[in-house]
């Protein structure tokens, strides 16, 4: 099992952080464009899922998968979006995405007055903590899958 990459978006669609681990294929466009494309897709997906649902939903859009990878989506009430791409073997990882938000983003970005919110995150401590957290996940390793 593998973790490919991770995006953090704020409520206005700004990419606060991007991390990459096992990504074999690049999009072939600039990162800026990739973030916009990604955010646009997520935004549409969210409203699509909301409109098409025949019943009232609690959680909304959770994940989608293709033949090769799975995209996991988590959104907080404040509009922060955590998006992680993994391979297909990974099940529901809502709690993991929530931990990234509550134990890493809140702890090392929100509580750091030197980090301005709604701008890409510069804090090295945040990056280090996030990287070691992802590397510590049971489904991180590329070999196991």
């Amino acid at each position, binding site marked *: 099992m593998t973790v490919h990459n991770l995006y953090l978006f704020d409520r206005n669609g700004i990419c606060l952080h991007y991390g990459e681990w096992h990504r074999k294929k690049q999009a072939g466009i600039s990162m800026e464009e990739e973030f916009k494309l990604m955010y646009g897709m997520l935004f549409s997906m969210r409203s699509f899922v909301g409109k098409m649902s025949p019943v009232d939903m609690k959680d909304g859009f959770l994940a989608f998968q293709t033949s090769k990878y799975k995209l996991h989506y988590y959104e907080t009430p404040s509009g922060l979006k955590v998006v992680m791409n993994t391979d297909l073997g990974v099940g529901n990882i809502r709690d993991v995405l929530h931990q990234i938000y509550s134990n890493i983003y809140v*702890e090392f970005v929100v*509580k750091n*007055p*030197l980090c301005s919110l709604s701008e890409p995150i510069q804090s*090295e*401590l945040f990056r280090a903590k996030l990287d070691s957290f992802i590397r510590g996940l049971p489904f991180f390793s590329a070999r196991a899958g």
Partner: protein
Amino acid sequence: MADSPLFQALHMEMAHALCGEGEQEKGLGALEGVGFRVGQGLSERLTKEMPSFKDELDVLKFLCKDLWITVFKKQVDNLRTNHQGTYMLQDNQFLLLSQLSNGKQYLEEAPKFLAFTCGLVKGALSNLGFDSTVTAEVTVMPSSKFQVVIQKS
């Protein structure tokens, strides 16, 4: 202190708001002043059930244990002295810096997050009868050293 996240957030905002561009000096003074007053009050409250202190070292031990635990939820990691009124309090995981960095990033911003605590220590000492100067020094975050020099009267 009451609720730690609230104290932390308030402290951070205070430090950030008071030490704006070009007002660093003034802001540090103000922060230290606030800390001083809080230190006075805390030392009053924390010592009301205690027997009186034997000597200077006893007072410093009180700072490192009781005061530090009340405010920062832990003891000072290391207390050193030259037995001539100079003390070094070292906290390897200083609460108010632990969210900022674990290296040299943001090092130039560190003084404004230490001024309140310098005042706190100074205020507590002053209320217990010792005039002092307190300075802080950080080489690698989040570890901090506070140097306390007791003034002989």
